Every structure is written in C-alpha cells, then in structure tokens.
C-alpha cells in the first residue's frame, strides 16, 4: 500500500517535471522564432534602402546629406553583432529613414512617381512589420522570462540552464517626439 502511494507521488513529480521542461522548451523556441521574424524584416529593410535611394536620387539632388546618413546607418546596422547593438543601430537607421520620408514631402514630382510610391508603401509596411515583430518578440520574451523566474518552473529552468532573454529595444529619440505633420486640403 505504502509502495503504491510512494510510486504514485514519484510518478506525479516526474510528469510535472517533464511538463514544465517541455513548456519551457516550447517557449524558448517561440522566442527564437520571434527573433528570426525580426531578422527577416530587418534584412528586408536593409535590402529596400538601395532601391529607394536609387529612385529618389534623380529627384533630390540637394539632399546628399540625408542619403549619406541613411547609407552609413545601414552599414552600421548590418554589422551589428548582438541584440543590444542591433537595437541601437536600427534606431539610428529608423530615425534617418523617417527624416528622409519627411523631406520627400517637399518633392511633388517624386511623390507622383509610381515606382517610388510602391517602394514607399513597401518601406512603411516594413517599418510596421519591424515594430509588430518587435512587439511579438518582446511579448514572448516576457512570457519566457516570467516562466524562468517563477516558482516552481524556476527550479527546472535552473537545472537545465534556461537563461533569461533580452528584450529588443530600439533606442530612438524621434519615436517619442514625432513632429506633427498635417495634410490639410
């Protein structure tokens, strides 16, 4: 009788450990998956920029400084090694791009160019996708970090070396004080 009870308790503990371990692995995979989604979008942003500059160059001869800033920020961002560095570099690039898109407003010929318009839609969508994939990634990281720090799953996390992950923060000063643009008719 005693043996059966002991066996049952051991079985319950073993199953609980397996369950917690599996859910931790699942969460960690989701974090990795969300990160790869961000990388895909960042790469897409980097790929779009040369096209955009090529199209805009002919119309905006007096904005060489803007183009140079974007190109420099792009190569900086492409060379980033870790999450924190990437966040910083992408922030600079994002700021340069949004400044560029504001400058475009002064060039009606460029704004009427069909090719440029579709590139602009692609770029602003990519910007959105970066923001949304960052949102999804940070949600997953929060979920995963909570699991690794809360009792009782923190014991399993400690045993199997599940370490807490970094949030992806894009450092951006312009994001907080966006200039008001109005398109009155």
């Amino acid at each position, binding site marked *: 009788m005693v043996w059966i009870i002991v066996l049952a308790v051991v079985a319950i503990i073993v199953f609980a450990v397996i369950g917690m371990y599996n859910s931790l692995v699942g969460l960690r995979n989701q974090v990795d998956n969300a990160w790869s989604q961000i990388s895909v*979008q960042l790469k897409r942003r980097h790929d779009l920029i040369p096209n955009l500059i090529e199209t805009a160059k002919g119309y905006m001869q007096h904005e060489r400084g803007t183009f140079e800033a974007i190109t420099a920020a792009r190569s900086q961002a492409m060379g980033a090694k870790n999450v924190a560095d990437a966040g910083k570099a992408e922030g600079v690039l994002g700021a340069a791009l949004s400044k560029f898109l504001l400058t475009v407003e002064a060039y009606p010929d460029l704004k009427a160019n069909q090719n440029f318009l579709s590139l602009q839609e692609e770029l602003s969508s990519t910007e959105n996708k970066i923001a949304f994939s960052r949102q999804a990634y940070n949600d997953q990281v929060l979920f995963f970090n909570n699991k690794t720090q809360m009792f009782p799953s923190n014991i399993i996390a400690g045993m199997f070396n599940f370490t807490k992950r970094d949030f992806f923060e894009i450092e951006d000063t312009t994001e907080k004080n966006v200039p008001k643009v109005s398109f009155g008719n």
Partner: protein
Amino acid sequence: MWEQIRANKRNSILLLFLMAAVLGAIGWTIGMAYVPNPNGGILGLGAALIIWLILAAVSFSSGDAIFLAASRAVPVEKSVNPQLFNIVEEMAIAASLPMPKIYIMNESAPNAFATGRNPQNASIAVTAGLLGRLNRDELQGVVAHEMSHILHRDILFVTIAGVMLGAITMISQIFLRSMFYGSMYGGGRRYSSRSKDSGGAQAILLVIAIVCAILAPILATLLYFALSQKREYLADAGGARLTRYPEGLASALEKISQNTVPLSVANKASAPMYIVNPLQKEGMKLSDLTSTHPPISERIKILRGMSGASFTDYSEAFKNTTHSAVPIPSSAMKTAEHIEIRQASSQQATNYKKQTRDIGDIMQMAGGYRFINCSCGLKMKIPPNFSSSKVQCPRCGTEYDSRG
C-alpha cells in the same frame, strides 16, 4: 487568452453535438410523421445522423471553401492590392500567426470576414468597397479584428455553426414544403395509415413535426447569435491590442456603419462571420437576442474610451460604456500589461470621386483585368478574355504586350 481559445474549442465540439441532437429530433419527428410507428422514428433518426456526419465532415474539411464560394470571394495576388497584403502580413506578424489566404469580394458595401479550420488554414475576405473607402490605419484595424478571430479560434466555431444552421434550415424547409405540396396534390393519401384508430395519433405527430420544423431553425439561430456577440467584443479588444491603435478600428466601424448599400452575398447563415452585421441596418434595433453583432455605436464608443491598448483598458472602457459584465476572460487581464496607444500614421484627404474609381479598379483587378500604365499617362484596362497579344494605346499609339 488561452482560456478563451480552450473555451472556443470546447464550444465548437459542444455545438456539433447540440446540432446533432436538434437534427436527430427533427429526423425522428419527421420519420414518425410519415411512418407512424417506432420504425419510422428510428429511420428518420438514422437518416438525420447520417446527414449530421456528412455535414460535420464537410464543415471540418471545406466549410471555409463553401462560405468563400457563397460570398463570391476570389483569391487575389499581391499585385492586385499590395497595401492589403502588407497589412495582413503585419497583423499576422503581430499575432505570431502564419499568413492567411486573402480574398476579395466584388461588392461595393464595405465589410470583411475570416474563416477556416485553424490558423494554418485560415482565410480573410474583404470587399472592394472596404478597400476603397478605408485609409491604411482603418484597414489595419479591420484586418486586426479578423486576425483576432483567427487567433481566438472563432473561425472554426462560426464555420461549423453556419454549415449546421444552414442544413437544419434546409431540411425543415424541404419537409414543410413537401407537406404543403403533398397535401395539395396527393390529398393526404400518402399519410393514410393501415389501421383506422392510429389516424388521430398520426395527425398529432404530424402537427408536432410541423411545429418542430418551424421552431428548430429559429432555436438554432438564437443559439448561434447568442454565442457570436461576445466574440465580436473580444475581437475588437484583440484588434486594438494588435494594432496599438483603437482609433483605427473605431473610425473604420464608423465608416462602415455609414454605408447604405446592402451586401447582396450575405445570408442568415453567414451573417455572424462579418465584422459588421451585413443584414441589419443601424438604428433598426430589433432586440439583442436576434442580433449577431453588438450595436456598432456601442463598439465605437468603447474603442474610443480606451486609455491604453491592452485588454484591461478595453474592459475598463467597456464597463464605463455599457455598465454590464465584461466579456473578457480574466486570464487575459492577469498580467498587468500597460500598452501605450501609438501615433496615427499620415492620412490622405478623402476624395470621393477617386474613391469610387478606386473601388471599380479593385473590382476589375480582382476579376482578372490587367492594368497597363502608358507613358503618356493613359491607364489601359485589359479584360481577362482579351485574345490579342499586342495592345495599342488609343491616345499616343505606343504598343504594349497585353500579357505583360
């Protein structure tokens, strides 16, 4: 949110069996009405259960295809409307879901719905009128609402319920009509019994069968409607959270509610799938019981009353607006998240003439037309059955390859 997803999966199964019971009851009474002994009842019951099995299989495997075909939605390529594709992709990323298939309905009434078995096999359909009327933020709000339906697994539930409801209505209709015409031409000969004294009992059974056949579709509809209202609020909350911008959805709902063109492809069975009830006009408040959707004005007021973009913010705004129980599961509000509302993206001024032209263009592109922009500024629209491989610009005479 897991609580809601699990509850929805459970509800889908429950609904399947409830519908089985209703179908069985109809089958049994109809069987009894035709053949007034237990054999007839069992025969009817058997037939009903076979129909149920077929329906269950059909709605699992191709319920979405049925609804898409019934609403005349056509699958489209990215080139037809790149912005719509981008927005759907953005929302799929925000919800961490695979990219759903995209359909466009050739309708000028603005509306949208989502369907499918699971997130891996989901579709989102929007009308050309919706694409033409809404700006980017508003369209994003609508797509986010539909994406929330997919995320919450509402789509399977609504699809199964729609197919089952349609079937129950159809069987009852066939029975009622056969009774009507049978009594008109056959003079009730078919229903005469072998023994004289069971005639009275059969007449009673016949009356019960008719009452059942009339009541069953109504009951099924009420059940369906009661279950779909809460989902709309939840999808609104989920949409606001995904976009971080409740105003987009609110102003989209406002524009949709101002529409006066009815959606011709919608019917009773598919009505709960749409973002806004396609059959009922605003202001025509029948009763909350028979409406698939909460009143639009209320949904807009709640969205505009949100101080952040989280589920907690939505439930607070909900309490302030309706003073009734919050439809959000408590598990969604456990983590005290604070989500700030983002800034509006740049808006273009509305131009109604251009809007009408855009809607026409979208309809033609979805219908397989190819557009060629001539260097002289003329836009040529090549119909899908255009046979020649060359096309000449009527203004400047430049020749183009009509197949691209």
